[in-house]
């Protein structure tokens, strides 16, 4: 009988080992220390609830609500690597502003690169042909030309008036306030709003 229980225990231990996965914790300034590492990357030192301290050479911040709450509910994840496969979540930051300014700025910077969404300031030209639109715009990140397929479904207006535009490559552009655009630019997008 004893061997059976032993076997069962072994199996359970093995099972635990097999299906072990990280448990995500709430990250606060008290238990998480973010530091810059080379080349715009971020390292993290976490103190787990049981007191153990873990170090991650680099982490990946991901927004849970990229549109409505870009600076809240930030998931901090391990990167995907060939060695470990898909990275799992280390923890979540409730509000970026809970962290000291330098840390929150560093994470916000990384997020803005990750969710690269240049804001359109001026529309130079717009033409529609064969169901594809060709845009030439100046954005906060520089001037760019892009092609869009089916503008009715790729231009989204939010309740708060912000506009998101997606091009054929999956790049995203935004217009923070279409009404604030100059007259000529506004007229070019007006029909799609």
């Amino acid at each position, binding site marked *: 009988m004893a061997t059976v229980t032993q076997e069962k225990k072994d*199996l359970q231990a093995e099972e635990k080992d*097999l299906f072990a996965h990280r448990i995500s914790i709430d990250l606060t300034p008290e238990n998480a220390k973010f530091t810059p590492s080379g080349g715009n990357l971020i390292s993290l030192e976490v103190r787990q609830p049981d007191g153990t301290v873990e170090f991650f050479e680099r982490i990946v911040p991901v927004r849970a609500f990229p549109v409505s709450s870009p600076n809240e509910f930030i998931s901090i994840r391990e990167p995907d690597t060939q*060695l470990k496969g898909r990275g799992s979540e280390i923890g979540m930051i409730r509000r970026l502003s809970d962290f000291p300014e330098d840390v929150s700025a560093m994470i916000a910077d990384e997020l803005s690169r990750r969710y690269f969404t240049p804001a359109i300031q001026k529309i130079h030209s717009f033409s529609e042909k064969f169901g594809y639109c060709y845009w030439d715009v100046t954005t906060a990140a520089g001037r760019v030309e892009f092609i869009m397929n*089916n503008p009715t479904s790729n231009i989204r207006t939010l309740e708060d008036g912000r506009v998101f535009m997606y091009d054929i490559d*999956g790049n*995203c552009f935004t217009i923070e306030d279409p009404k604030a655009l100059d007259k000529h630019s506004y007229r070019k997008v007006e029909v799609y709003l």
Partner: protein
Amino acid sequence: MLPLDKLTDKLRDTLQEKGISPDCIDMILRMDQDRNGRLGECHLAFSHANDSLYRISEDEVETFVLSELTEPYIDNYATASRLQAHHHTPDDPPPVQGEMSDDEYKTLRRTYDCSGTTIVLGYCTNACKLKLLAFLSLWERLSKGETVSEDDAIFEQFRHSCPTCGRPYKNPRRKVCEHCTKKKGTMRRLLSYFTVFKPHLITVILCLLATTAITLITPIISGQVLFDQVISEPSFNEAGEQITGRMHELHFVFIWVGVLIGLALLSLGIGIIQHRTNAYLSTRVTRNMKNDIFTAMQKLSLSYFNANPTGRLMNRVNYDAERVRSFFIDGVPYFVSHILSYIVLTVILFCINWKLTLILYAPVIPVVLIFKFVLPKLWKCYSHQWRHSSAMNAMMNDSLTGIRVVKAFAKEDAETNRFFTYSTRMYKANLRTNLVSLTIFPVISLLIGITCHGMWGFAGFEVMGERMTYGELSTYMGYTGLIFGPLNFFTNFTNMVTDTMNSAERMFEVLDTVPEIVEAENPIKLDTVEGDIVFSHVNFHYAPNRPILKDISFTIHKGDHVGLVGHTGSGKSTIANLITRMYDVVSGSITIDGVDVKQLEMNSLRRNVAIVSQEVYIFRGSIADNIRYGRPEASMDEVIAAAKAANAHDFIMRLPEGYETNVGIGSRSLSGGERQRVSIARALLMDPALLILDEATAAMDTETERLISEAIERVSEGKTTISIAHRLSTLKNCNYLMAIDNGELAEMGTAEELMEKKGIYYKLWTLQNDQLRKVMEGE
């Protein structure tokens, strides 16, 4: 140099300035973001000979030692990508295999590759992603010492030029050459649909000309002839010439009234002929166009349908063809006739009285201006109205399709309120449209009304001064309608042209899109397929940033029953899709009986390979029709045999009309398991050499599943079968198993061998077994 991105003169100069010979460069990658992540430019130059990777931004060149960089990879961002690599210092050399086994070395090497410090090589938006991926793949191949030629298959994806004329496509995603389509001319191409019916077309045009002539003549006859010469008393001008009353006799009244009635009847008759011919012409033209579009669509590859929602495709068939038809039937002929009548009219009116004509034409300019500048506002209103109405439709569709969920969560009120929001928006848009149109059109009628009254005044003055007759006045009145009627049409006409051209271009886009999967030119026909399948170094992705299969190689022999296991999204179903050539491999090859699937005739392939997939579609029609969809000529015996083998016979016989029960949308609905069994019967009826079951029995209870797997075992004696399943019990009849993990073939062997390995299969087995054990022990 490999044809990835171009080595510009500026880059060449910059490199030379730093003492780097451009000849050593193997390839260039242009990244469209600078090092701060703004839109800009940054180039990576790869040189295997120099063991260097150069990063060139502006005039600055940074050098990385290639052998110190490992595991270059892309950190996938939402809308941009970051290229990173692990950097090792010289005192951290890579491991040497020595005495180690391959597996041990592989693990060690991987650990080494992922260690070191991570460095960022550059940023780019999704626009550069394809090239970035190719760059990485080439980096790996070049580092291994492989020589890559300029016409390597990897560059195929960047060859965006028309096969006919060799010009690059303006839009690389839309493989339609504007030059070649333009050459034939959209208009002429459209016309070719009509010119097939030449006699009808000529009839329509002649009829139209005749009716136009009659409309023009009628006011002259009624005014200047009937009124002036018949009804009016004879009168003479100063020179003694008779102006009116030349036919001032009773019988002339009957004659001319008769002529007018005759003309009206003639016009009616011609109109009937014209409309009948038109009806004949337009219905046939629309049918031909719709047939062409649908035929072209059926030939397109699955990826096209994934990218284009069904609704939009149906619009192409219905709406666009209709648009084009209406342009040629209701647009062009009237345009021609209106133009003609305008010219003739102007000449006639000027001859009668030029002053009055000027008054008549005076409001034309403001009316045209109103149309020109105010009507676009109205179009905008219409477009808003249309968008709100489609949003409302979508909402209704959503809510009514999900009515079960709505009721289950008692959300009827919330849904009703949601509908109110949409309908309110819709009503506001409608109201606005109405208000705008109710302002524009009365203003126009007012303008026309004022003109008419002004004309009456001026004409009265003229008639009283005997410079004009009553008849001429009445002719004028008759013509005012003809002047203002077509104005609206003319201002609309340009819109009509652009709309039609858009529709036509959308239509031709479907007709001209080159299917991604095309049968080889001289396809190899296989009458009987044995079922030997070989995958060699297969790589595949749907979207370039997400590799689905990575370097997969395996062989399946005739008569094998192979099981594929793995997590959701690991790429199992993709393997099935590739064997049936729903998609083409990105690189590597798949052969069936030694023939590359790309060389195989589509018919031979699809006739010999049957797939039962997770997604089951039951067409409208009887169950028997659904079962023999792939082989309509199959006999009743065969249908029943297939249904029995799929364990579907029993439930079909319980239906009131047996095999003739109508199923599909709008008819009796079958349960998930029943539909699944019908689709298995459909596949079995094909008597395929290779049967692929992609989670085919997932929707069934264990007992039914066992019955079916036994039946399949019976019918698939000596045939190759591939089963894909989560539930390992489904795979108990398999000779051997393959475990797919994250797009890689992780394990392969018999169930016992995989248990030994303690890998993925073992994990899955332990998990499922353990759960069963827990149930048994009542834990």
